[in-house]
């Protein structure tokens, strides 16, 4: 029987959730026995090569490219999992959510200590090739249907491991009190 296929991505996140996945230590050898990876920064596969069983999403949706990738994951993955606070509620990037996007851009590109004197023409990035910024950072489940949520910043390695094993083997997910945390 073919191994279940997993895809992962980091949207508006810091890759900390991916780091936490690697924190399963030697169980990574078991993981490789259990699953194959498709599109993921772990194996550097850029495009989906097939329909996947499980998609792990780190990060929220802060720009048009994030939305595009997330929708592609929903299309190509049978089960989609929000991994970490940013995917679940926007996380730290969402601290900008109650500041108008114009003010955020001005702060970043016009008024910050590093841009104040370095951007004489007062240019805000507007090239058609760069993603368009959303009015706020959206939690993944407000953009596509998400099947499971693994909270934490990052989620404990044990939580990710338990969840993956449960999803792959079809066994009930174990959620010991100590591993489900929001920080």
């Amino acid at each position, binding site marked *: 029987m073919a191994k279940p296929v997993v895809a992962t991505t980091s949207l508006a996140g810091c890759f900390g959730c991916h780091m936490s996945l690697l924190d399963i230590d030697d169980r990574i050898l078991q993981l490789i026995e259990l699953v194959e990876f498709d599109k993921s920064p772990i194996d550097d596969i850029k495009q989906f090569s097939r329909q996947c069983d499980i998609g792990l999403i780190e990060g929220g949706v802060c720009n048009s490219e994030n939305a595009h990738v997330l929708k592609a994951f929903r299309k190509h993955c049978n089960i989609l999992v929000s991994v970490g606070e940013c995917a679940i509620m926007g996380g730290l990037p969402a601290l900008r959510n*109650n500041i108008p996007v114009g003010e955020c851009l001005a702060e970043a590109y016009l008024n910050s200590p590093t841009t104040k004197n370095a951007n004489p023409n007062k240019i805000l990035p507007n090239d058609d090739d760069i993603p368009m910024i959303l009015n706020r950072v959206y939690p993944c489940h407000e953009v596509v249907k998400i099947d499971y949520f693994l909270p934490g910043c990052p989620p404990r390695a044990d939580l990710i491991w338990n969840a993956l094993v449960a999803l792959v083997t079809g066994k009930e997910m174990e959620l010991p009190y100590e591993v489900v945390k*929001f920080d």
Partner: protein
Amino acid sequence: MSETVRISIDAKEYATEKGRTILEAARDNGVYIPTLCYFDGIAPTGTCRVCTVNVNGRPMAACTTPVAEGMTIENDTPELNEMRKTIIELLFVEGNHFCPSCEKSGTCDLQALAYRFKLMAPRFEYEFSQRDLDATPPKLIIERNRCILCKRCVKAIFADDGKALFAVSNRGNRAMINIDDKLAKTMSDELAEKAMNICPVGAIIKKGKGFSTPIGKRKYDTKPIGIENQVSS
């Protein structure tokens, strides 16, 4: 001698005293009823509604309802716990609760209740409402993004002359906690500390204080909220 009153909670009989609230009676007897706005020693405000129980079939707040002879109380039922979880969910989408960066994370009652009810993600859309932080008091930061308007501080923290230091302004979802700017300047370190400790979330932070306990050793890192109230059955 106070009058003994018999009640039942989840089909078990308990004896308590007349004048006690359902919540007090339950705690006296080692029965945990989840609470959030309630704080031992402060008159209950009954604002969070997390302690709602069924009294003779009718939903009532356990913290404000006095016991009466023969009361049949349902507490630990799937329906009631589901309702409590919904209330916690509502609070998470209403405020801006960025747990990873909060001084109170790990000792926060709101977060602990979410853990207890296994809230993985709220079903409702986040509001990301605009709330201003007040850092003008010399000793405190009022972080309204995290405030759940429980009113513990309103009920418990007063200036020396008995005047209110904290009050809620506006109404509906524009309601917000305020500290009296003049009186805030007179606060002692002890009172500021008390205000911070009485806050169930990270809305009242004493300046220069925070992140003092390492992750793993904090109040709710390994033990769920309410465990201290329960006797093993």
